């Protein structure tokens, strides 16, 4: 039982998909409740996992490792360690909430919930898989449901958004496929390793690569690092691979935006930690100043200014603002993990978790108002505070959390990221810290335009009713986590710490052999 917990968490939603398919399509409520019921086991198993997770070891836990395809040594290998546990918990936590947020999906409910449950399986699978091949399968498996969920149930430009998301991600994962094969065959040539996709054995390959320049002065492992990075950067999304994100987020239905921002973006940074860091440590150290730190800082600044522009320029879309703020906040993750300091990397993974909860709240809040007013224009509201006071209260919590207010969770993680990064990179850290002002300005501006002032007259026709119980059920648990982690971050940090320090060690010990070049020193 104990070792099969992850397998159960992965495949319960898949069983739910089958169950939903078997229901008659007229029984809409039954379909919703069935879908909800099949996300709950993962949630409760997640709580059990949290309590039984051993925080003192870097070893994988709850491991299942059985052969899948013998002839190619492909294994069904799942397990969690400190790098992945927080993400598994986040996924298990967000999925029931997203089902609640999907309650008013009106069209082809059966298909929607079936695809959603398939997506749930794929996401949990990505975070648990420890075999590169399995990881890849789950990684790609997310694409199909996502394409349909955005494309069928999305907003007016859904087709464009869906295919754009699909093409970007497919391009990235195609690069990952080639890298995966190179690792596999390199491992096969090494005595004592043999052909394998096992992510715990592949680190042995790193020393055996040929290091002479292959293309544009880059060696083979460096090219592979960049290829893997591009794959993950598409998901993060890092500039300049981010352009799918505003489209996909804006067009996707609320619950899917929550999943996109809450879980899918984390897969980018998670992938870098899971694949790039241990498998190519020396290259990670070489590229981190440019690809992670500098690009991360640029992400922070760029995302914040794009979000700010939504306050002033058309279409003044609240959802687009939140989408761009995601790009900005993911920049902190990149900056933090590039530092290779204990604070930085802990802060990065904590920020992944916090951003997951806070952005989920933000998108849910946008969804609540959109369901009532059927538009999301920032300048289309005003004085909402007196019409929907409870809603405004919840909104206030989420917005201030996103701003990084002390006492709320994002403050801790952003400060950790910046503290850690300060030792390594002065200028990027300074940029990241100063951007907090921009972040505060676009969020405050939005609050002022939408919620403060006199209520508008047209609200009489809009029937703006106060936030209802179902919506509170989605938002309050998230809000509680945001507050708790604001005061007691160790609830999550303790899970991560040991494994992440181990990861830091791997990179730093590999880096001692290579000296940093002049440009990287200048960044510091």
């Amino acid at each position, binding site marked *: 039982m104990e070792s099969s917990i992850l397998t159960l968490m992965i495949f319960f939603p898949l069983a739910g998909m089958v169950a939903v398919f078997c229901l008659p399509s007229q029984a809409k409520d039954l379909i919703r409740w069935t879908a909800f019921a099949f996300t709950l086991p993962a949630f409760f198993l997640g709580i059990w996992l949290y309590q039984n997770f051993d925080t003192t070891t870097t070893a994988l836990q709850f491991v299942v490792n059985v052969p*899948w395809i013998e002839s190619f040594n492909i294994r069904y290998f799942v397990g969690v360690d400190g790098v992945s546990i927080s993400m598994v918990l986040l996924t298990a936590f967000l999925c029931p909430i997203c089902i609640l947020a999907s309650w008013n999906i009106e069209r082809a409910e059966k298909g929607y919930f079936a695809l959603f449950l398939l997506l749930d399986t794929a996401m949990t699978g990505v975070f648990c898989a420890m075999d590169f091949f399995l990881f890849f399968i789950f990684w790609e498996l997310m694409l199909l449901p996502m394409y349909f969920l955005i494309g069928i149930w999305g907003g007016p430009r859904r087709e464009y958004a869906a295919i754009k998301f699909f093409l970007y991600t497919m391009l990235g994962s*195609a690069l990952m*496929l*080639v890298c995966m094969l190179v690792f596999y*065959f390199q491992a096969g040539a090494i005595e004592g390793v043999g052909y394998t996709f096992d992510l715990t054995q592949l680190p042995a390959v790193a020393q055996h690569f040929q290091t002479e320049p292959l293309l544009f002065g880059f060696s083979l492992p460096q090219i592979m690092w960049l290829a893997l990075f591009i794959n993950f950067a598409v998901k993060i999304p890092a500039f300049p691979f981010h352009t799918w994100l505003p489209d996909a987020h804006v067009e996707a239905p609320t619950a899917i935006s929550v999943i996109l921002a809450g879980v899918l973006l984390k897969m980018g940074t998670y992938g870098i930690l899971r694949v790039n860091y241990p498998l190519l440590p020396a290259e990670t150290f070489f590229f981190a100043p440019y690809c992670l730190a500098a690009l991360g800082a640029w992400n922070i600044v760029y995302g914040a200014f794009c979000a700010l522009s939504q306050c002033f320029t058309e279409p003044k879309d609240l959802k687009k603002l939140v989408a761009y703020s995601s790009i900005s906040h993911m920049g902190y993750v990149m900056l933090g993990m590039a530092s290779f300091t204990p604070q930085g990397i802990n802060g990065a993974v904590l920020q992944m978790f916090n951003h997951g909860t806070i952005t989920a709240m933000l998108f849910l809040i946008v969804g609540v108002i959109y369901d009532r007013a059927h538009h999301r224009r920032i300048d289309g509201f005003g004085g909402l505070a007196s019409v929907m006071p409870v809603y405004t209260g919840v909104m206030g919590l989420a917005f201030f959390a996103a701003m990084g207010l002390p006492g709320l969770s994002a403050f801790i993680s952003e400060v950790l990221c910046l503290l850690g990064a300060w030792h390594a990179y002065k200028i990027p850290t300074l940029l990241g810290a100063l951007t907090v002002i921009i972040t505060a300005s676009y969020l405050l501006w939005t609050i002022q335009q939408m919620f403060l002032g006199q209520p508008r007259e047209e609200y009489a026709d809009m029937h703006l009713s106060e936030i209802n119980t179902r919506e509170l059920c989605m938002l309050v648990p998230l809000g509680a986590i945001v507050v708790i982690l604001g005061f007691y971050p160790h609830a999550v940090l303790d899970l991560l710490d040991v494994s992440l320090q181990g990861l830091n060690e791997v990179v730093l010990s590999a880096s001692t052999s290579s000296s940093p070049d002049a440009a990287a020193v200048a960044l510091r």
Partner: protein
Amino acid sequence: MNLGSIESLAYLYPEGILLLSILAVFLVDLCVDDKERLGNIALVGAALALVFTSGLSFFDIRLIEGLQGAGEGWLFHRMIALDSFAIFFKVILSLSLVGVVWMSLGSREINGPNQGEYYGILLASGLGMFFMASATNLLLAYLSLEFVSLTSYVLTGYLTHNRRSGEAALKYLIYGGVASGTMIYGMSWIFGLTGSLDYTEINAALLQNAPDQLTLFIALVLMLAGFGYKIAAVPFHMWAPDVYHGAPIPVTAFLSVGSKAAGFALLMRFFYPALSQSGDAGMWQFVPGVEWPQLMLIVAMVTMTLGNLAALNQYNVKRLLAYSSIAHAGYILMGFVVLSDEGLRAMLFYIVVYYLMNLGAFIVVMVVANNTGREDLEGFRGLAWRGGALPAAAMAIFLFSLTGLPPLAGFIGKFYLFAAVVKGQFYWLAVVGILNSVVSLYYYARIVKTMFLDQPSDSEGEVTLDPHNGSLLAILSVATVILGVYWAPVFDFADRSTRFFLGS
């Protein structure tokens, strides 16, 4: 040792069954008025051929190994080899026959008074392909290829009152004539160089006598015209879009699945055991100095790129699938250029997978054409929302599988091809192939988009699925998914089948 004509017949029973069913179809055609039954006879014949071919492969494996061990794999005075490679292709070909006959039963185009001829010629074409897969003599290779071509021309022009069908048949005939003429000219050069038409003797002569490299190279290029034409590889692909577009849909499916597989069988058997030498660790060595792998590398890259780029702008689904099948010929050729057993194995595996997904896609095209009379993208508009949810879902599975997305069979097929390419360190080829997969996503996803994301216009009627097509679609789509999750048995089958009988 090789068996003479009479002794060989004992090992030729799948072909014999096909021959008998062809005769049965023609004879019954003369006697009965209810032409529907002819299709059933053909289906039974094809299914029996399948059963007996698989019987040869699974139950009589000891028989074959015994034959090979004793050096007795030659049939008909060294015209035919009976090896696991041939049997693999015979299984695939009889599967194609079963699939295509089955799908013809539910086709509106085929449903006419001339059905008897159609089914008879279809089976005859399949019979020719059986010989293509096992020919070990240039003479028989040429004869079987011509036999398949001739029957294909007739099948393409089957819709006598359809101008497009007639035009397609004529184009096919002209291209085919030129290609096979070029090929036989190349064969004559080979004969001149080696003094033999027998693959084993050609092999021995080439390796011992070290013929003039340029001459040999030209001869091979000339022969490639014939092979390339059958598998629709650039630059011999020009016939494919027009022929696929004009031919009745089941025939198109047969050309894209059966004809292509047979072409690959011929190509692989000629270039590997006849022209190359099996070396250490599953690697093959070609006659020194003749750089045909480099040539085929370029052909593979250009084929997939051109097929994919041309498909981007197609709005007729049959034509789109024609370009897609050109692109897939390019993918399969990736396994051909690496000169290793891995490559061969990956090609065989891909051919199985390709059979499933491409046949499935054509069946959905046929279902839509039966209901709406259209083959263009417009006919697919909102298919999922006007009663066609099952064919639309099946089509989505086939198309995403053709793209190469896990967890579908197409991904596993591509995975093995790329694995062989990366192992051979042809990184550029891998990158080109990968980028092509991404490009192909665009046009496959456009069909999916039209089916699911677009709303049906009011003028489009309901789409219904008859039991014939429904059951076949269900089998193929479930197989495509299952092979994407657990493919070890099929892979082992492909692995066993890479052993050629070389004889002595």
